[in-house]
């Protein structure tokens, strides 16, 4: 998976942001989306460790030891930023005051189930704030490679790993496709310019519905 693919996913996700929205970005590709926000769109970034109004990385040497994002990286503040405690922060999240959360995932399935916090016997990191974000944010966007590093599909008929949330995924953005999660199942909305519909279907275990001719993104 080259850097270009990561950037493609981040760039496409940034097009989902609308002016004035409160957005929480997970670690990695989700955080990269902040670099591609369209001109004229201003969003308010929420960081679950206790503030809104997060800005970009500081100039080296200007880091403040008391100011990190939820991924333990130093950040800056935008004018109008505000701090609060963790109970208020998750009140904001569960209370539906975060318009969009963007998260990575290990698996997602036809019912919109998300599995992204534990691989039994291998990776036990803990859910952190992911379960609250999935349960509470108005829109959950998953930023993920289409397949895992062994080439296995991550978009499954049914998740095999322990779930982070039941039926909470709204949109899946990969390097190959943009897929909407609906009560009726997964709908293929867009296909990457260097992919065919067949490429996407072959790399996807879940059934994908094609209602209109999919759009193209690059």
């Amino acid at each position, binding site marked *: 998976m080259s850097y270009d693919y990561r950037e493609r996913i981040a760039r496409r996700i940034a097009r989902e942001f609308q002016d004035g929205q409160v957005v929480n970005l997970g670690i990695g590709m989700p955080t990269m989306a902040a670099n591609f926000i369209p001109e004229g769109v201003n969003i308010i970034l929420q960081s679950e460790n206790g*503030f809104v109004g997060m800005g970009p990385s500081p100039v080296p040497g200007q880091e403040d030891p008391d100011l*990190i994002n939820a991924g333990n990286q130093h950040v800056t503040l935008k004018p109008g930023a505000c701090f609060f405690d963790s109970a208020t922060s998750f009140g904001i999240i569960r209370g539906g005051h975060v318009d969009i959360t963007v998260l990575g995932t290990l698996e997602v399935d036809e019912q919109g189930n998300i599995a992204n916090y534990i691989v039994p016997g291998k990776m036990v*990191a803990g859910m952190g704030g992911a379960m609250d974000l999935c349960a509470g944010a108005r829109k959950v966007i998953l930023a993920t490679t289409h397949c895992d590093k062994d080439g296995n599909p991550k978009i499954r008929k049914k998740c095999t790993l322990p779930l982070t949330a039941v039926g909470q995924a709204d949109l899946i953005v990969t390097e190959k496709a943009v897929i909407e999660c609906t009560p009726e199942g997964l709908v293929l909305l867009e296909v990457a310019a260097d992919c065919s519909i067949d490429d996407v279907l072959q790399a996807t275990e879940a059934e994908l519905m094609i209602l209109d001719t999919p759009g193209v993104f690059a």
Partner: protein
Amino acid sequence: MNKERDLVQAIADIASGSTIMVGGFMTVGTPEILVDELVRQGQENLTIVCNDAGVPGGGVGKLVRSKQLSILITSHIGLNPEMGKAMNSGEAQVQLVPQGTLAERIRCGGTGLGGFLTPTGVGTLVEEGKERKTLDGKDYLLELSLKGDVALIKAHRADRAGNLIFRMSARNFNPLMAPACQYVVAQVSEIVEIGELDPDEIMLPGIFVDALVLAPADDQTRTNETEGGAP
């Protein structure tokens, strides 16, 4: 009134077997001086409540390394592989709690509430052993409050009455933990006389704080940033 206390004395009042809440998020806002003294004094068989397991040798990670920690109630251990090893070898137990649920359980513990209903964790491993309630067609889990014997917290400024002002993202769990615990020690960078803090700017009332420990400014630095962000 003067709640400033000697570091050694303030920590000596903590007994082995205590449940201790420790503030901080990935060690930002963790009172490292207080944790260092707890390691030096060596109280054992501790149940620690903290957002995460810190980092190897940093934050509550120091209590993992010293084997004083028996049980960790937390949302995330991914930045401290030593915690994962201790868990896998059976030396210590980990109870994983979603971060928002952990914060709210602590808040309830300090505010007279027995618990709350949250949509977080419905249909996941978190639901095991819990009651599910359906209200207006939406499912919730009944989560119970959490209390501790001791809170070790960090603030920026204090007055001698224990009124506290936190700084930036170092606030996190700190103000929630103080009301939920019997004995509260706050590590602070500055202590001023009573009346010098603007009452409108105080973030935690001093009635929740038992002891203030003044930490030298050069101990406020922190070098635990994760390269490339947390995994």
